[in-house]
């Protein structure tokens, strides 16, 4: 009996070493992540698989659009220069593709929170007729025909069957590594650097007028709020109410993070503004009578210099090591292993 235990124990150790564990690094001033890593423990092979899937147009109906087509790493995973997203057959969607940053700290996804878990998010673009126009069952059938994927799934899950759940979990794993915590703001927090006078003044104004919704250190409370944008009559997007059925949620959208905001233009759920200065002017032009949210009921009065200072502070949220992180880019080194010339 003792021997059996020893053998079992030994085999257990072996099977664990097969998966290279992966520990998410984040600063001590971040809260605890909300994603339940126990249900999907990070492993390098799964992250690699997720990365290959994220860049593979095989997830779309006509094999033309990948996740990265709309979420480019060089734009903090937002859609470069598109107010509304662009999918298969050149179809235009109805919302702006948000930046994908610090997703492990969110529990509701999309501008209206229609998706309740990061794992399930990918189903939405895959099946959206104007995004990828596919069906997860068909994606799995396509993946199963490709020897490279059979091997990648085997490496990741010790099983080469390829299932929907595995595909979604691998995509989550790659996206969970999108942690941005290396901007100038962060080095100031770590006392490795100091703000210029202009940035420091912008920071003060930010804390006074913006931090109640775009709260540090994630730069969002991830609540749904109405920031006073007028409805776009060509889209008639009512936001959160469609999901919650609560009339008070009409025209509320998820507060987006402002990390890397300099890279993720255009702004707002329908990409109305292309410059940060326009966003700041939106807030200073708000008339208090049409504003539902308490936090924006007092007019925000800023001088031209203060507006510039506020934008200067927002630029300290740009994290170059995030947008140029080689482990987020097109997985050429992984794919090279399968290329046969």
């Amino acid at each position, binding site marked *: 009996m003792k021997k*059996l235990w020893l*053998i*079992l124990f030994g*085999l*257990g150790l*072996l*099977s664990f070493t*097969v998966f290279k564990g992966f520990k998410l690094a984040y600063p001590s001033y971040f809260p605890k992540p909300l994603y*339940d890593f126990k*249900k*999907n423990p990070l492993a390098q092979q799964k992250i690699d698989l997720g990365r290959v899937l994220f860049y593979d147009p095989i997830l779309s109906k006509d094999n033309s659009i990948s996740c990265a087509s709309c979420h480019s790493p060089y734009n903090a995973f937002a859609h470069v220069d598109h107010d509304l997203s662009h999918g298969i057959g050149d179809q235009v969607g109805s919302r702006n593709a948000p930046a994908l940053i610090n997703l492990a700290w969110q529990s509701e996804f999309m501008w209206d929170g*229609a*998706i*309740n*878990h*990061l*794992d*399930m998010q990918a*189903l*939405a673009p*895959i*099946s*959206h007729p104007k995004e990828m126009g596919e069906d*997860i*069952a068909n994606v*799995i059938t396509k993946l199963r025909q490709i020897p490279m994927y059979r091997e990648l799934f085997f490496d990741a899950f*010790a099983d080469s069957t390829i*299932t*929907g*759940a*595995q595909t*979604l*979990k691998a995509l*989550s794993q790659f996206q969970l590594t999108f942690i941005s915590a290396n901007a100038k703001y962060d080095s100031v927090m770590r006392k490795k650097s100091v703000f210029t006078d202009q940035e420091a003044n912008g920071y003060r104004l930010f804390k006074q007028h913006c931090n109640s919704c775009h709260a540090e250190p994630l730069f969002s409370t991830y609540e749904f709020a109405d920031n006073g944008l007028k409805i776009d009559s060509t889209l008639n997007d009512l936001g959160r109410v469609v*999901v*919650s*059925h609560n009339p008070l949620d009409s025209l509320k959208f998820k507060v987006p993070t402002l990390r890397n905001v300099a890279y993720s233009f255009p702004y707002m759920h329908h990409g109305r503004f292309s410059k940060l200065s326009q966003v700041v002017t939106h807030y200073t032009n708000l008339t208090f009578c049409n504003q539902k949210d308490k936090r924006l009921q007092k007019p925000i009065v800023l001088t031209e210099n203060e507006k510039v200072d506020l934008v200067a502070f927002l630029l300290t949220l740009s994290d170059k090591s995030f947008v140029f992180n080689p482990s987020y880019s097109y997985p050429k080194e992984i794919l090279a292993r399968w290329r046969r010339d």
Partner: protein
Amino acid sequence: MTKQPLLVCILVFCFAIAGFAQASRFTMSFVPCFNAQPLQLGQAYLLANINDSLTVEGFRFYVSGIKLLNSNKVVYEIPDGHYLLDAAHPQSQTLQLNLPKPFIFDQIQFHIGIDSITNVSGAMGGALDPMNGMYWAWQSGFINFKLEGTSPVCNSRNHKFQYHIGGYMPPFKALQTVTFSCTNDQDLIVYIALDKILGSIDLRLEPEIMSPSAKAISLSTIIKQNFTNNIQP
């Protein structure tokens, strides 16, 4: 590769344990019916209230949270038991429940659908794998009950009717729980009167219910009432 011997060891170990304990089994069978006869997919039936024919092309639903009760007290709950029953795969409609020991019970209770905690728990495999087509992509949530087919009275594309019933968030929670009297020595057979469920809907005006809504909730109550242990025409 290295995982396989471990798996074999664990399996051998489990069988050994299983041999010692007095395991027991209970069988639940589900029989979808139309006009008191077992349903045949693709067959044209006459539906009295529309005075016309209809054909059921697909019928699938989840059963979960199975509990055994004795004198109204839970004696055992099947752990992680989520079952997808599919009329196209008749074997999926018989559930063999393995019990760790023989229990005395006089009632069995289960959900038609998937509970709200499972609904927010991320990607899961097996019966819960979204590739089974029982998960809404555009707004998270499982479809508890899916009934599809055609009827000439439906004013929809290709005369299709589609009822995808689900929703786990208030105010539109469509999960239903049913309880049946039974005994531990006799298998339970549950009949589902699809003619009564479809007869409750105006197929002309409402060929589709495909999102969490008040209509989905009211249909889910009718569905629940038509899970019975005796069937009458």
